[in-house]
Each structure stands twice: as structure tokens, then as C-alpha cells.
């Protein structure tokens, strides 16, 4: 707990100071992507790592958040702050409904049904042209007015700090969740459902709570993404985002708080580095997943945590 707190604070300081070192626009852009990825990974980790169920439909909430922001911005001209909050709320409500349905199932059934929901949303987004503009998507999402006069570099730095603020909020909520009776309940359910029930924990309720929190985080990430990229299309419900989330959480270490912070950094950097090898990139991701599953199932931070426990015992 203390190690984590120190690590997170240290990382926060580094993150705050980072843009001041005068990097190029591209580097700041990567920084923004990392912020986006950490928001997503932190939420996803709550489901995969703490509830212990594997959701292949988390992009549903990313997409819902993104489209919410896009629609509010382009149709009603709402500003970014409102949109982010609205996206969180709407994604949370969606999480409540979808979670209420899917969390009745477990194991592969849960995996498949969450995937089905994400796919349905993608098909709807692709076909409901009157609202979502179909495959053309919604473009021209405006950045905040006070950014309008700034240079491209400065705009990216602004988004970086907005992203960082959102990341701090997400990680704070995740931290509080994990170290409260909520986190304990969810871990108990994950480790042994029978024990959880026999001590009075209602598995459905606590899993749903975690699911809703994770959905809200994904919604926030989606809204952030929408305003940064200024365009939202049906591919936001697509599998590539899901793959990234899986790798980030797996590699970083599911069921840890630092995992979803470290994982995205590594994966985003890896993705950018491999950008030249455009198609090879995903092949390598496939290999990475296989290797991590076979040889490092606890991910990096899980491995670190296990080692530290060994030392502590000595």
C-alpha cells in the first residue's frame, strides 16, 4: 500500500513536470495517448483483475462515452467539461444495464455476452445513420474555446494536462475502491464465491458496482478521446481497442493498482515504436499476449509484488 502510494505520487510528479522539458509535438501527443490508455486500463483492470471476470465488451462504454461527447458537442454545442461528466454518467448507466444482464453469467458465457453487446453497439452505430452518421462518424468536435488561439503544440500540452487530471481522478477512485470493504468484497468473490456468499457478500451486487465504476471510467476516456481527435466513428467500438486494453492490463499486471499505470506506458510506446511496421505490429501483439499468458501470467507488477512478498518474508 505504501509502496504503491509512493510510486503513484512519484509518477505523478514526473508526469506533471514532463511536458515542461520542451518536447516536440509528437512526444506530447504520445503522452496524451498514454493518459487516455491509463484511464481505460484502470477501469478495465477493476473488472478483469479484481472482479476476476474477463469482459470483451469494454469498448462498449468507451464508444458510448465518445459518442455522447460527440453528439453533445456537435448537436448542442456543449463544452468539454460538461461532456466528460455527461459521458461518465451515461456510460455508468449503460454499465448498470449491461452489467445487470451480463453479470448473471460467468466464465466464457460472460466473455461472449459482453462481446455481443459491444458488437451490437458497433452495428447500431454503423447503421443508425440519422443519429450517428453511420460509418462516416461524427466529425468536427470542437476543442475548448480558450484553446482556439493556441499553437498546435500548446493545445496538445493542454490536453495532456486535462488527461492527467482525469487519470488522477480515475486512479484515485480505483485506489479507494480497492482498499475499502468494496475491494475486499470483490476480491473475496473472485477468490472463492462460496466463501463470499457464506459470509454475507452478495456477489452480483458488488461485481455490478465495480462494473459500473469501470464503465464510467471508460466513458470518461471516450469523451476525452472524442475531443482530442475531433472525430468519432463506429470503429471506437472495435476490437483493436479491446486488444490494446487486454495487453495493457495483462502486461502491467491485473489485480494490481500499478499495473494499469505501467502497462499502458509500455504498450503505447510499443505501439508507436511499431507504427512503422504497420501490420507486423498486431502480429507482435498476438505473440506478446501468448508469451505473457504462458510465462508471466501475473504481469509485470504482479511479478514485482510477488517478489517483494518473498523478500518481506525472509
Amino acid at each position, binding site marked *: 500500500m505504501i509502496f504503491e502510494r509512493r510510486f503513484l505520487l512519484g509518477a505523478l510528479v514526473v508526469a506533471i513536470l514532463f511536458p515542461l522539458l520542451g518536447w516536440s509535438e509528437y512526444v506530447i501527443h504520445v503522452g496524451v495517448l498514454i493518459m487516455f490508455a491509463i484511464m481505460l486500463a484502470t477501469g478495465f483492470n477493476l473488472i478483469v483483475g479484481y472482479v476476476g471476470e474477463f469482459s470483451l465488451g469494454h469498448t462498449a462504454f468507451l464508444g458510448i462515452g465518445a459518442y455522447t461527447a460527440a453528439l453533445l458537442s456537435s448537436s448542442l454545442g456543449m463544452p468539454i467539461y460538461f461532456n466528460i461528466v455527461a459521458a461518465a454518467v451515461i456510460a455508468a448507466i449503460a454499465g448498470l444495464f449491461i452489467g445487470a444482464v451480463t453479470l448473471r453469467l460467468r466464465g466464457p458465457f460472460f466473455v461472449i455476452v459482453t462481446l455481443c453487446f459491444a458488437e451490437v453497439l458497433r452495428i447500431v452505430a454503423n447503421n443508425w445513420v440519422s443519429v450517428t452518421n453511420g460509418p462516416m462518424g461524427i466529425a468536427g468536435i470542437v476543442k475548448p474555446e480558450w484553446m482556439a488561439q493556441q499553437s498546435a503544440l500548446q493545445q496538445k500540452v493542454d490536453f495532456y494536462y486535462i488527461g492527467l487530471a482525469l487519470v488522477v481522478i480515475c486512479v484515485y477512485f480505483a485506489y*479507494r475502491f480497492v482498499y475499502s470493504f468494496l475491494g475486499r468484497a470483490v476480491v473475496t468473490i473472485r477468490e472463492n464465491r*462460496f*466463501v*463470499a456468499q457464506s459470509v*454475507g457478500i452478495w*456477489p452480483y451486487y458488488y461485481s455490478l458496482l465495480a462494473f459500473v465504476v469501470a464503465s464510467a471510467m471508460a466513458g470518461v476516456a471516450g469523451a476525452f478521446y472524442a475531443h482530442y481527435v475531433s472525430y468519432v466513428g463506429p470503429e471506437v467500438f472495435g476490437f483493436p481497442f479491446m486488444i490494446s486494453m487486454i495487453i495493457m492490463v495483462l502486461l502491467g499486471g491485473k489485480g494490481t493498482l500499478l499495473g494499469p499505470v505501467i502497462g499502458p506506458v509500455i504498450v503505447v510506446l510499443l505501439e508507436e515504436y511499431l507504427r512503422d511496421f504497420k501490420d507486423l505490429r498486431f502480429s507482435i501483439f498476438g505473440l506478446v499476449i501468448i508469451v505473457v499468458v504462458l510465462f508471466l501470467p501475473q504481469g509485470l507488477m504482479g511479478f514485482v509484488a510477488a517478489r517483494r512478498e518473498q523478500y518481506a518474508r525472509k
Partner: protein
Amino acid sequence: MLQVDSITKNFGGITAVANVSFAINKGEVVSLIGPNGAGKTTCFNLITGFYQPTSGRVQFEGIDITAFDPHRVAQLGVVRTFQKTNVLPRLNVFENVLAARHLHGETSALRAFFPGRAVRVQEQRVRDEAVDLIETLGLSLRINTAAESLSCGELRLLEVAVALSAGPRLLMLDEPAAGLNTQEAEKLGEILKRLVGTRVDALLLVEHNMSLVMSVSHRVVVLNFGRKLMEGSPEQVRNSPEVIEAYLGKPVE
């Protein structure tokens, strides 16, 4: 306190439990015995909501809990352990017991995210209670050991500790002495006797270890082939020819 009325459970063509009735009063230790396959664990499952009875009723403190889910039954104060050791294997002893303290560590979800002083005090109290319980059960030396690394006897004790941690009024233990040697079983018996009236109001045991059963129980209920064979004091049961026959078969003429 607990009233079991004619519960029956059919699994397809097999009747695991048929018309079993008994009651448990405050301050009592009741043991459920019978040969393997008699339906004892099924009864446990029926009482605590892990199975639904095909017919019959279960009442606890006047409330009909027949159709309740397991967690609701636990919330009312009936906590059970399992025949096959069920703990949280990857967590250590302290974490296991702390996790079971759930009902006592609850706050509103909002407070979980924005904990004030009250929550911090409660968290500390819950932790202290867990440590205290671990001491009572004699597991203090292993408090930081992962559950999966414990010996069989210690595991059984941990299971009891976890169940106790949930704060039950009626504690139901399924074969707590399984795998324990004579000494360990005696020690467990001492701990169990002290529990009633202090930490719990009543105790229901399923047990094969007869000396443990005879030494701690006020009453014994005997099951055979899913039916209640008889009910009585430990002496009555020990000397009953039907019970002997159920366990050992008819004497050779």
C-alpha cells in the same frame, strides 16, 4: 432459533433428503450425524440457501428463510463452513479473516470513496477484531501465512475463524474435525464449547468424529438415507440399536 420443517430435496430421481425436521434453540450445540451419503451436507445446503428444498420450510428467528439466497441467510446470522475446505487460498490468514468481517465493515459506497475519520476508525476496529479472533483460534503464529501454505489442521481452524469473523448467531460447521488428529480435535472441541454463549448463540455441527460429537453436543440428530432416524441426547443416540445398525450393520446372529 432455527426451525427445520419437513424439508425434502429431490435431484431428478434421487431423494437426497426426505421429510427431515429438527430445531435448534439458543445456547445449544446440536450435531448432525449419519453414515456417508445420509444427506447431512445436503441439509446444510438447504438451510443456508445453496440449494432450494423441493418441499418443506426453514425458519430462523421466526423469519422464513426457505427461499433466501445464501448471502441473505448469512446476513441474518447463519454462517456455515464447507466439507471441502473453502477459504481464500491466495490470501494470508489475516486477509481471510478480515475479508469475512465484511458485514461489520460496511459503509455506504460513497464513504468508501471519500473516507472520513469515522471510516478510518471503523476500518481499524475491524482489523483489530480480526486479529483478536485469530488469537482466539490459536493461529497467531501463522497470521501472515498464505492460506494455501497452511497445514490441514490449521486450515480447518482458519475456516472456523473465517466463519466466526462474519459474526454469526448460528454457526454451522461441516466436518470441522476432518483431517485433525486426536489432540487437534480435542483442542477444537474446547474452542467450540467456549464459543456458545460468548461469540455465537448456537452451534450446528456435521461430524464423523464421535468423541468430539459426544463431548460437545447437547443433542444429536441422526440421519440415514436422507431420513431422520432419531434425535436425542448423546447417551441415547450412542446406545440406540437403530443407530448402531445404521453405522455398523446388523449384528451377526
